[in-house]
């Protein structure tokens, strides 16, 4: 047993943990980060980045396959394409290695000690790590819990063999002939769309009445339309009941569905990693199944901080990163607290969805002045040249003052709007601020300006 001590101990090197550790290191605090796998967490290793790589590959393949049908409006013809998915996965793994290696380098540069191993919390100031060399005990002044989350298992569909979590679905070596997806949230839809474009027959089973149930139907409608066009079958109000002999059973109001599926991807949500590493034994105040924190990311125990997915929804890398910076600043004695107006959320479905700030219903529930201005992509020149005119931009605002309360968009490529939308929210922009900002022509972004103009009843191109 080796004994180590440090000022700041970060548990988990996902986006929240590694950002926190880098910031703490930069602040001159003696910092140790403990991670059982490669740095980067779910996001870099088995989440955001691998799925975006797969989605890109699928889009490329699909574009060629479309041309091969001879129906290309662009006049492109080609022979039917093939894909070697194992090679695709090799390319994806290369990107992951490059990024996780980069994180390792950043931690070193910030003077952070990295310890690889399975950690167990003994008390608020001490953890035990089982490393390759044996047990070591680390004592610290401040502990940051950033242990993240894992996919939730459905009891009737235990992970293993042909039942996959997102992790396995992002490492398949062959495109399955048939793929059933249990859970129509953004993870299931992103991966499902990718496999549909790669040639799999995809069926989605969603228990609620709508895909992407946390957003309004207006936002998910263009996605649903595209899924149908891609030949994806969507069953709503359907409960997966079991999987035997290549058939997924699902209960619906009109009886049991039998869905042929070589593989079943279960994406019904994620749960925080709390029990596994002894966090539960600390007796921290909880909020539901998550660790309760205040605006400084402090838990109910002095010197113990929590960031990222263990602190609740939305479980997004950039939220964890922002919390990581706050926790490190608070530990370093700086005046920091959570004061963000918005956490942007992006679904890399087809078309993509960006959600920042309040949705129309959320705004109307608390603000009688809330109004909505919308502008469709079909009136945008750039969208036409990209052959993708489905979707729209929507600005939720306060009628009298023009204050922007939320911005959402659906459309191919609109994920890159996330920055402008979030900036508008954080700067407390009004419709006039956006409308009076020149948005370059010809870009998809002009739709944002047009939506703002529409909100001011000054629409130009509508």
């Amino acid at each position, binding site marked *: 047993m080796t004994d180590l001590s440090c000022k700041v101990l970060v548990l988990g090197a996902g986006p929240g943990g590694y950002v926190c550790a880098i910031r703490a290191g930069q602040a001159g605090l003696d910092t140790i980060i403990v991670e059982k796998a490669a740095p980067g967490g779910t996001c870099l290793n088995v989440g955001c980045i691998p799925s975006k790589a797969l989605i890109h590959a699928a889009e490329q393949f699909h574009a060629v396959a479309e041309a091969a049908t001879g129906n290309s409006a662009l006049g492109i013809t080609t022979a039917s394409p093939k894909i070697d998915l194992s090679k695709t996965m090799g390319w994806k793994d290369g990107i992951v290695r490059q990024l996780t290696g980069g994180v390792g380098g950043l931690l070193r540069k910030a003077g952070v000690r990295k310890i690889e191993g399975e950690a167990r919390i003994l008390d608020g100031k001490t953890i035990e790590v089982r490393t390759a060399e044996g047990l070591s005990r680390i004592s610290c002044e401040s502990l940051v819990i950033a242990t993240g989350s894992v996919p939730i298992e459905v009891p009737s569909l235990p992970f293993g063999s042909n039942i996959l979590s997102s992790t396995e679905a992002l490492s398949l070596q062959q495109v399955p002939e048939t793929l059933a997806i249990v859970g129509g949230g953004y993870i299931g839809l992103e991966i499902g769309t990718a496999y549909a474009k790669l040639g799999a027959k995809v069926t989605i089973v969603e228990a609620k009445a709508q895909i992407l149930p946390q957003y309004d139907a207006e936002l998910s409608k263009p996605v649903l339309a595209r899924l149908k066009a891609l030949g994806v079958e969507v069953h709503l109000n359907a409960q997966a009941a079991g999987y035997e002999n290549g058939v997924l059973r699902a209960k619906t109001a009109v009886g049991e569905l039998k869905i042929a599926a070589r593989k079943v991807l279960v994406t019904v949500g994620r749960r925080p990693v709390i029990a596994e590493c002894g966090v539960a034994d600390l007796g921290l105040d909880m909020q539901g199944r998550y660790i309760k924190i205040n605006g400084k990311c402090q838990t109910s125990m002095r010197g113990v901080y929590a960031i990222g997915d263990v602190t609740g929804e939305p479980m997004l890398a950039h939220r964890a990163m922002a919390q990581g910076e706050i926790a490190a600043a608070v530990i*370093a*004695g700086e005046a*920091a607290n959570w004061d963000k*107006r918005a956490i942007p959320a992006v679904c890399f479905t087809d078309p993509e969805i960006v959600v920042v700030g309040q949705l129309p219903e959320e705004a109307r529930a608390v603000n009688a002045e809330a109004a909505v201005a919308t502008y469709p992509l079909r009136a945008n020149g750039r969208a036409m040249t990209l052959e993708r005119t489905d979707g729209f931009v929507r600005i939720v605002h306060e009628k009298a*003052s023009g*204050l922007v309360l939320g911005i959402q968009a659906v459309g191919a490529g609109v994920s890159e709007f996330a920055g402008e939308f979030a900036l508008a929210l954080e*700067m*407390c922009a*009004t419709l*006039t601020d956006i409308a009076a900002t020149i948005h370059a022509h010809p870009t998809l972004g002009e739709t944002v300006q047009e939506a703002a103009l529409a909100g001011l009843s000054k629409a130009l191109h509508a």
Partner: protein
Amino acid sequence: MGIKTIRLPDVGEGVTEAEVTEILVKPGDLVREDDPIAAVMTDKATVEITSAYSGKVIWIGGEVGKTLAIGSDLIRIEDESAGGDDTVPSLTPAEAQPAPASTPSMAAQTESCPLKASPSLKVVETRPNAITATATPPRAEGAAVLASPAVRARAKEAGIDLRQVVGSGPAGRITHADLDHLFHNAGQALPRNPSGPETVETVKVVGLRRMIAKRMSEANATIPHITVVEEVDVTEIEALRVKLNEARGDKPKLTILPLIAAALVKAKESCPKIFARYDDDAEEVHYSNAVHIGIATMTEAGLMVPVVRNAQALSPYQLAGEITRLSEACREGKAKREELSGSTITITSLGPLGAIATTPIINKPEVAILGVNRMAVRPSWNGSAFVPRTMMNISASFDHRIIDGWDAAVFVQRMKTLLETPALIFMKD
């Protein structure tokens, strides 16, 4: 002839109404273009309104104290022009003429002032933004505090609660200018604790500290102190001290303190009133024929005053020995009760830390205390040249209820004489 209406102009971003504070014309008055006609006050500033036309005032829309909406009719003027009725919101920047020279009372327009482009509107007085304790809160309860991340960071750094700050920007957004205003009014940004959140340690006042606190406040509250500071040339007595130390053999080493104690004993002959204990409850002063000198002594627990008893019976060496013995007893906590009471006068000396003057607090129930300040070599004028002399100040406080200024001055002068001519200390009458 035409009738022109001057409306209350937009006097600032976000301002929807203004209170009329002054009307400078009355119906029938002839006004010329650019003449001041009224002043209005918004929640930000007082703004002077000037006339856009020359002509005769025929109607006034407001009275002093009335609140008018921006754009409402303020004054109608009948002018000489042939055109029909015309209405303008006072002057617009495009038709504005250069304003007549500002009167000295007019404050310069600030950079952040939204009225800058319009010469017809003069900010004559800027009221501080309400920060705290305003009658009306900066925004409706539950309403979001709007500020950009940079403004939020700046406020955080300065420890400002943005919920208490009025936002002048669109939709009530708090701008950098609002913070500038706040800092300007506050004088400066509040410094931040660099070592993190402020921590406060609470220490209970007990034991000796509580005793000191009680006695000090009692002495300071009841005794009207008079303090006299005098300069003393101690070159001679220092030279004597050095010689005595050279020849002391196994006697204790002399500091200046036993010599001052010896001088004090000698001073009693001519100034007996200074050596006393005043029982103010009984309204009696007790004069002893003995001299018991309290020696203010620093210990780890705090200030203690051990007493050299019957100092009149002791030689300088014996005084030195006794002072050393008592201060050690105090520091070790072994001083006896009788060694800590009964003094008729006290000496307080901080040695090299003694500064140039102090205002000692009397050790009640005594009526005087002698403070000894730092010794230093200073140039002294001897009538023909500056010569280096070792100088030391004494700062003595007296209970003005018992000791008059005259007596205090005589005592201080006597001490000066004795210390400057040390032979006098040892002269017997």
